[in-house]
């Protein structure tokens, strides 16, 4: 993560440096021999150059990053592109390039107006998109603050034209009314911050559109087109930085998640291969061979199946439920080989067409033997049941053993903790464990329907990690 952040900062520094160089160069070239009366005109030209550099760089960065990141970056690339085209058709820029040629100016005015509207729409779309994924209040206030600042950019315009000043004041009034409205009524309160910033944004767009119209109709003096670009750039920057922050955070979370998942998994595997269990089984096999060769052979095959599953678990996340049931049966057969009193499992399975994390059922079955002592009870049983419900499959493992008091010292083994953790990491659901002394234990978990794994994943035995961050 540090490397990624470092690169981002470096990119920002390089951008600023380039902008600065561009600015100085423009001042040096265009500023030579200018009189003070040309100052305003000249500064507009500098501003135009700076903006152009800025957009060009921005687009370059986005295009480069588009090869690495996808989807949402694509939106920003589109946005930057339309802003760039928009800028190229800026009447001020055209004046700067061609002088006062009216045909070029008129065409530029029309194009400028069109592309400008497109960019505003794109900004708005992107704004919405960001909101839907993450509506952190703090980010919204930052963006809203930026939007407010943008109004400041219009202040100079007010000195040129009283009509524009009136329009801006009118729009500000609407914005204020909207903010109050959203704060007052219950339907707006849930996302008040968002609506407030949205209102500001709308009125800003209104300002820009008004100026655009005035500009197209030649109401206002030279330079307005460049000024009205500023707010758009600022809003765009605000949204972009909010988005970049969010992407960073998501990436950070994903990498932390992966690390934690690996830890849990390693622990689960270590837990699962219990030396004393293996050796006891081997001892039992020794005795079995004294009784019958067939019995011994069968036991060896069982143990090998059990070990194979455990080894396979190292690079598999999910397996079909039916296979997991087979693994449970192997475990129960092995347990029954060494236990004097047999474990009885009832497979109350209504459906098996779903997947579970590998080795996620065994710990609960082991626990039922170890702590609930289900095998010592007359007619004791472990019941594995599945029921299809509207939301998904309800899976439960229950026993009628002695149970335990969940509030007292938890006898639940590491195995259970691992299994529960893996359920919540891989499937986003935590199994609920209910128990009381004398009442047995019930573990239940709702497995929501997932889209079936793709063919490719199926072939590789689903050995890929799935990131379950939002």
């Amino acid at each position, binding site marked *: 993560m540090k490397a990624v952040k470092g690169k981002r900062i470096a990119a920002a520094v390089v951008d600023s440096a380039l902008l600065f160089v561009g600015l100085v160069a423009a001042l040096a070239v265009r500023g030579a021999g200018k009189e003070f009366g040309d100052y305003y005109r000249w500064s507009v030209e500098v501003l135009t150059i700076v903006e152009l550099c800025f957009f060009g760089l921005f687009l370059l960065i986005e295009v480069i990053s588009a090869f690495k990141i996808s989807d949402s970056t694509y939106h920003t690339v589109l946005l930057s592109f339309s802003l760039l085209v928009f800028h190229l058709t800026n009447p001020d820029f055209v004046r700067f390039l061609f002088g006062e040629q009216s045909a070029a100016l008129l065409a530029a005015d029309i194009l400028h107006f069109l592309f400008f509207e497109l960019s505003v729409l794109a900004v708005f779309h992107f704004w919405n998109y960001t909101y839907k994924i993450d509506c952190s209040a703090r980010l919204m206030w930052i963006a809203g603050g930026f939007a407010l600042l943008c109004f400041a950019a219009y202040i100079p315009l007010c000195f040129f034209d009283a009509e524009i000043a009136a329009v801006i004041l009118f729009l500000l009034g609407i914005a204020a009314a909207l903010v109050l409205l959203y704060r007052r009524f219950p339907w707006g309160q849930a996302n008040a911050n968002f609506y407030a910033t949205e209102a500001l944004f709308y009125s800003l767009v209104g300002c820009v559109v008004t100026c655009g119209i005035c500009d197209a109709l030649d109401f206002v003096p030279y330079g307005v087109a460049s000024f009205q670009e500023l707010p758009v750039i600022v809003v765009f920057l605000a949204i972009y930085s909010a988005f970049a922050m969010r992407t960073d955070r998501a990436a950070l979370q994903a990498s932390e998640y992966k690390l934690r998942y690996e830890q849990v998994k390693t622990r689960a595997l270590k837990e699962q291969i219990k030396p004393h269990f293996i050796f006891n089984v081997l001892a039992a096999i020794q005795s079995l061979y004294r009784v019958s060769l*067939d019995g011994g*052979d069968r036991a060896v095959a069982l143990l*090998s199946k059990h070990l194979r599953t455990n080894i396979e678990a190292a690079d598999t996340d999910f397996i079909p439920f039916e296979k997991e*049931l087979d693994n449970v049966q192997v475990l129960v057969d092995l347990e029954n080989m060494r236990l004097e009193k047999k474990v009885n499992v009832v*497979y*109350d*399975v209504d459906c098996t067409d779903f997947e579970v994390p590998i080795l996620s059922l065994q710990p609960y079955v082991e626990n039922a033997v170890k702590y609930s002592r289900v095998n010592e009870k007359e007619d004791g049983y472990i019941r594995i049941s599945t029921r299809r419900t509207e939301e998904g499959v309800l899976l439960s493992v229950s026993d009628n053993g002695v149970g335990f008091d969940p509030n007292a010292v938890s006898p639940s083994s590491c195995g259970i903790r691992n299994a529960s953790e893996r359920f919540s990491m891989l499937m986003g659901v935590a199994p609920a464990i209910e128990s009381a002394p004398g009442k047995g234990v019930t573990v239940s978990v709702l497995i929501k329907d997932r889209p079936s794994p793709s063919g490719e994943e199926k072939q590789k035995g689903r050995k890929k990690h799935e990131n379950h961050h939002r």
Partner: protein
Amino acid sequence: MKIIIVDDEMVAHHTFLSDVIGKTDADYRFFKDDVPAIEDYIRKNKVAAAFLDVSMPSVNGFELAEKLVALDGDLRIVFVTGLDVTPEELSPAVRERTAGFLYKPYDPDELRNLLAVIEGGARKLTARMFGSFECFVGEVPVRFSSNKSKELFALLLAYDGDTLSMTDAISQLWPDLDTDKSKSLYRDAVWRLRKTLQQIGFNCVEFRRACLVLDKENIECDYWDLKRGLSSEYRGEFCKSYDWSVDYLAALDVKEEAKNRRT
């Protein structure tokens, strides 16, 4: 039926294999990973199946399979391996001829099942309902994983191809239990029956929602034979110790009496 077994660690495996295969009627021959010798043998003999170890020093089991299948298109392949391999790793030509996988160490029954599959022809499941209920594949009795799943299968056979609904099965097998509990036990019996049939390679039951249907092909049953008047080994006992057998006994006795009167 001739089979060959190729394994570089033959010393370790030899005794076990010869003991297991020796009890079947397969004519077997061991090879180390000596490819020319194996190819020569395949050319000169009609070999039904080759059991190949996957990881051998001089040749990979998959590659060897490729060569052997090219030599003899009818040859079946069984991969014997300590590793975890899946059919997806095989080339289409080999996959088509692959009869199965054996993961070392394996249950001798799995090997016997595979041999039976390779031998082909009509593998029959024989059900004996007169006296105590038992099932056999060849001479080997079928091991059901619970008594109730065995009883359920017996009931399904007694239904003689008719659909057995969950309600019927429950009322016959668990007449005294409350609905929830009996349904649990029914599902358990169904699941275990399914697993047992899967293990012996007879998918003769169609597991539908809340009912079961038996596919009677490849099943021989003394009760069916009697019903069709083919033979009579009936000695006044039918599915001993199953409560529901009384109804069938009555009908059988009536039939038997009628027959005796005639003779």
